[in-house]
């Protein structure tokens, strides 16, 4: 099956203040065959206490459904400024979302966690389908989600 590929280089200047060094990170999210419409997905960072810090990516175009990405919605307050320019198409069952962006060095190995919330129309919402710390050690180690995410990994 041809993999669904979205490659993006996006500086996250809005959320994380610019610093001298940034690193290119590739996030790869493969979905299970859940047999439903396209999944909405929110990828965001929290601190070690789970407090929302910033949005990495929103898959799914219709903002009226964003409330179902519950953890992200709760943290971001769904304010447009939080996700402007960070949205793309929803992801079809079984496909993989791959995206690359530059992240500030200070975010890595500093207690930050990556969260992925997922939601599918007429099916259950998964708050924190995936939660993984953003560390050098964790890079390249796929983890499985508890909802529609079959496998999630990031590479530097």
């Amino acid at each position, binding site marked *: 099956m041809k993999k669904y590929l979205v490659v993006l280089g996006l500086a996250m200047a809005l959320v994380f203040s610019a610093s001298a060094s940034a690193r290119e990170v590739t996030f790869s999210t493969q979905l299970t065959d859940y*047999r*439903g*419409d*396209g999944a909405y997905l929110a990828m965001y960072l929290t601190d070690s206490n*789970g407090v929302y810090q910033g949005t990495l990516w929103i898959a799914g175009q219709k903002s*009226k459904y964003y*409330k179902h990405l*519950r*953890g992200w*919605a*709760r943290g971001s*307050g*769904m304010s447009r400024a939080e996700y402007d320019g960070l949205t793309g198409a929803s992801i079809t069952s079984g496909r993989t979302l791959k995206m690359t962006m530059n992240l500030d060095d200070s975010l890595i190995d500093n207690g930050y966690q990556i969260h992925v919330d997922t939601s599918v129309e*007429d*099916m*259950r*919402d*998964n*708050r*924190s389908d995936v939660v993984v710390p953003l560390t050098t050690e964790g890079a390249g180690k796929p983890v499985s989600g*508890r*909802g529609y995410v079959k496998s999630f990994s990031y590479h530097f």
Partner: protein
Amino acid sequence: MWRKLHLYPGLLAAPLLIVLAVTGVILSLSPVLERSNAVIPADGQINVAQLAQNVVTQYPGVEEIKRTPSGAVIVYYIRDGSPGADLVNPETGESMGPYEPSVFFRWVQDLHRSFLLDDAGRVLAGVLAAMMVLMCISGAVMLARRAGGWLPLLRGFKGSGDGRVHSELARFAVIVLLLSALTGSYMSAMRFGLLPDPGNSEPSFPMEVSGGESSPVGSLEALKNTDFNNLQELVFPFPGDPRDVFSLSTRQGAGFIDQATGQFVEYKSASTGNQLVDWIVRLHTGEGLWWLGLLLGLAALTVPVLSVTGVRIWWSRRVSSGIRGNVSATDADAVILVGSENNATRGFAKDLHAQLSRAGRCVHSADMNELAEDYPKASLLFVLTSTYGDGAAPASANRFMERLRHFRKAGGLRFAVLGFGDRQFPRFCQFAKDVDVALSSHGLERLQSLACVDRKSPDQFSQWGSRIAEVTGLNLRLSHNPAPPSLFELELVDRADFGVKVKAPTSIFRFRPGVGKKSLVGRFGKKHGQLPEFEAGDLIGICAPENAKPRYYSLASSSADGLLEICVRRLPGGLCSGFLHSLQPGERIQGFIHPNPEFRPAPGSQPVILIGAGAGIGPLAGFIRKNDARHPMYLYWGGRNPESDFLYRPELGSYLEDQRLTGLSTAFSRTQEGGYVQDKINEDAPNVRRMIEMGAQILVCGGSNMAAEVREVINNILEPLKTDVEKLKQEGRYLEDVY
């Protein structure tokens, strides 16, 4: 215009509409199925706090409780790190089994709303819904016009074939179909931003919560105050996050509840817009309204039939329009003007055109609206027109009267008007009558007085042709038959002969379907050895060998009886009756069914008075045989001599015995007692009058002389009631099948 609005979307969309309808029918079952499995507590019996507490006890890892509109409770939970969903009894919080949404219904739903094509398909489905709205409205307008108003529409239509099926089904289904189509269009328009979305029904997230120790869910005040039956969804706070809240949505509104205080930190009532959308979705899906769902499904079931009959009606009209070899208006010596709403009349005009041309005339055919200012060379003007609705001009004639004012009559131009209509309607052929008068008052000379053809009767048309042939001296043989019969083969099983001694040889013939050759199979693939659909009172057309002109006989049985039965008297010199009487069992004939749905006993328990003489007993005996409901039925019948021509004697005896027949009164003219059937009715006048007062219906079958005598007697009986046969006929309570 309405016709076009109905036709084009219909032709374009028929196959896809069938898909939408069939999937809709399947989906309509879903609310009923859901409802039948759900436990529904009474209002006020359980509040959401109790429910949540019960659920938490059973499911410590609960994330969300959802109540579907049908009342089923779904609990989404995490157990040992993996997600699950169960259907739960709201009264106990106990599992009723895992929640597994049906893959089949899901697929059907996808097919229904997007043809499995995601957004592109959803647009298509939306467009189809809008087309359906258009077709419902245009169809309803056309039905009302045809019936002559909205109120007469309630009474329904007579007639037969595709047109009847189409209009009768539509009459019942149109309101519900319109509801489905409108709500579907609305949902689609809203999804694609053509209509304003009422927006989020939820308030924005609270920035501040008390942050205190979380209380047991069963003690939260806001949940205690919410009845279970109003619940839509309760989302639990993320475990271990003291800043998170409960999110509660009900049909009345939505809000967030502090885990510690149990109070709403934010609450927003559902706006009118939200409630409207909620209702529109319910009206479309039947969710939570299982009976409506079934009704929607039932109406959707008509769509495939409407599509097929609609396309067939269109096709048969197309085939009957179009005229070859048209001479220009200035050169023609005979002119045919056609007033037609749906092209049915054109077929007749075409036949007339061909026959006149064959007889050597230069013929010009045109719509009545194309009436020229003069026809310089013409000596014959034929106007063939139907009537639309309650006496109005049909589409191709609606400007005729206006144009007639500018028409210059030439000397020697004589006209004849032939009206087409249905005697069931009160203003039968009214427009034809108006045209006839208008032409005459415009100073034109009549070639032949106005004639009318009832329900496209080929016989009446050909009779009119003979009269025209007489007055013009032209050799015309009009034979247009708008519905070419599909012949089937019959094999004579047995015959019972009566009346030879009294010189009225009459036989009851019983046929079974012949195992025909391929060429005899009906056009639409009727199977070998099967009778077509018919009821007692319908007619069978039979052609004697080497004679193209069919004779019609009333059927005494219905196809459900498995035999086709007719009762035929041999007429001196009768080609067809002679042919039938020469048949021996095992021999075969060919025939076709000519539906005659008007001549039937009305449903209901009012008394039915059957009157007949001679072979006219055939269909009447058929009605009695079918009277399984044992409604009061009385038969008055006249023959010649009980020893010779007492038709159906044994059958009538057994019908009396098992009460399918309530009373029998016979007259035999060639006995000592003598007398005719009308005399028997006269003797029984008080009874007959009383039954008519009770709402009885009268059906007469037999020769035209007898029918006239019976009318006279009945009129006398009716006099004290201040009514007459004419009035009963208008009410559909006096039916005649006369030959």
